[in-house]
């Protein structure tokens, strides 16, 4: 294998955590395969942050930097990545399975006639081949996948791969002349609406989710209060999203979001199989539910059997106390 290209995502000219994860994983694969690794960044003002990638072992960063790349465009960005991939004769492309990565990877698969493995949670090399593991059926099963096309694309689930710092590497930065014209912006982002600065459940290191056990939408603030004290994000079960208590963007589960935070706290959630599918890969799971036979206790590391409305405020206070010390 000759060359690995890592697409490193930035938003508002800041690197995302997933960017470091992608860089480190590309570097590790490069070491295992004896392949050269290059990174690609696209943005309006990203040269400052591009040099940070050296600390993660990236020796060379290709930079597509123009004012018009400030906002993401599926058509323009995917064209740049495909062009650079061909120009550099890369045969492996590593990308994050973030909203941007998931949007861009399939067009790249078509442009490069490359097999794409979405949402990888493990990636390793066996005899010079890359084998990826990814969840299917929302995590109810896992598959090992190999790509047989000349160019191979792997999209890494955020928050799973570890960024690894490396000493003594400075990345060389090389500007890329993209030749992108206005016609390449057929799909154009007009506006980005941030929902009141809240963290997204897929990106949070701690997720606190609430379900029917909260008894009514007026009690959901208990979940939000606890999430806030822990610096985490609030999620919801499908039951309370269907009941209209919470927006679907907060739903965790098979028809919602799949999360794998370090700590997942399920409050008043019984643990229907479709919910478990969306969160069972969390590193540590805490369940608070009044029904001791609730399925959520089958996968929880720690549980309290009891009324969420009494236990959660006490838990929030206790965390406040110990975290302020």
């Amino acid at each position, binding site marked *: 294998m000759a060359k690995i290209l890592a697409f490193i995502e930035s938003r508002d000219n800041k690197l995302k955590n997933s960017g470091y994860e992608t860089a480190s994983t590309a570097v590790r694969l490069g070491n295992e395969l004896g392949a050269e690794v290059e990174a690609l960044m696209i943005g309006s003002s990203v040269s400052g942050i591009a040099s940070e990638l050296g600390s993660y072992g990236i020796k060379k960063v290709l930079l597509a930097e123009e004012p018009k790349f400030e906002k993401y465009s599926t058509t323009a960005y995917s064209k740049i990545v495909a062009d650079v991939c061909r120009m550099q004769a890369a045969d492996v492309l590593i990308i994050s399975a973030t*909203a*941007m990565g*998931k*949007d861009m*990877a*399939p*067009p790249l*698969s*078509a*442009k490069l006639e490359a*097999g*794409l*493995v*979405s*949402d990888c949670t493990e990636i390793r090399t066996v005899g010079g081949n890359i084998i990826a593991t990814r*969840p*299917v*059926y*929302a995590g*109810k*099963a*896992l598959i*090992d996948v190999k790509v*047989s096309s000349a160019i191979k694309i792997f999209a890494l689930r955020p928050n799973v791969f570890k960024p690894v710092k490396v000493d003594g590497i400075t990345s060389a930065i090389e500007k890329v002349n993209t030749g992108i014209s206005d016609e390449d912006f057929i*799909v154009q982002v*007009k*506006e*980005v*609406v*941030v*929902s009141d600065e809240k963290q*997204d459940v897929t*990106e949070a290191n*701690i997720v606190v989710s609430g379900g029917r056990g909260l008894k009514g939408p007026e009690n959901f603030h208990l979940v939000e209060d606890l999430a806030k004290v822990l610096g985490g994000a609030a999620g919801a079960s499908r039951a309370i999203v269907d009941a209209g208590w919470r927006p*679907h*963007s907060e*739903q965790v589960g098979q*028809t*919602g979001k799949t999360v794998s935070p370090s*700590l997942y706290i399920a409050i008043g959630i019984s643990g229907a*199989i*479709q919910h478990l599918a969306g969160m069972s*890969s969390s*590193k*540590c799971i*805490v369940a608070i539910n009044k029904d*001791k036979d609730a399925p959520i*206790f089958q996968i929880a*590391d*720690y*549980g*309290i*059997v009891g009324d969420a409305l009494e*236990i959660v405020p*006490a*838990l929030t206070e*206790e*965390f406040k106390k*110990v*975290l302020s010390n």
Partner: protein
Amino acid sequence: MKIAVCVSQVPDTTTKVKIGSDGKTIDPAGVTYIINPYDEFAVEAALQLKEKQSGETIVISVGKDSNKEAIKKSFAMGIEKGILVKTDAELDSYAVARNLADVLKEINPDIILFGKQSIDYDDSQVGQITAELLGIPSISVVVGMTVESGKITCEREIEGGKEVVESTLPVSVTAQRGLNNPRYPNLKGIMAAKSRPIEERQPTYTENKTEILSMKLPKSKPKGKIVGEDVSAVPELVRLLREEAKVI
């Protein structure tokens, strides 16, 4: 306006997955199959567009004979025509997209709608690959959509917010939960769906670019600890999270 919807048939969300004898797919015994839930949002969006702008609707599926059930469900909701590219082969997303693109090339729709992903393989690829193969733009994970004078404006979900995205037609859109509330088929629709013909076609592309080597169940966790049965357990839970699990 020509509106196409692409649908698939998947195991119900309540399915308990068992690995099949080939070690690469699930055991279908006892599994209930349904139209992919995200595809219902796509079907509903197609019907609303047709009702607002008039036009014709067509549903396409690639897969086994049993995928006809997903097509019939779309008929029952109100879609007028249906095509099944019939194959028993386990095709990957790229191969499915190639087959869809070959059919769609002839139909030449103004809008193609997909579910944002099918809840079996969760690839989230087919909609956007199909669009790219057809050389048309795609907008994914859409929760809001308006089509006016040859232009489409969509809201799509991103981490912690939404993007407002514009594109020209023809375009491909993948639907996310929240886009609409799919209608329930009425009796008349269900009856009409029974007799509506489904055109069958042969696959035009059957080569996979990805190969599933094995499927396994996730490691089951050792049984957790019930820390207590009331508020008095709270300090101990916090201690365990800090000192034993070390996650806080």
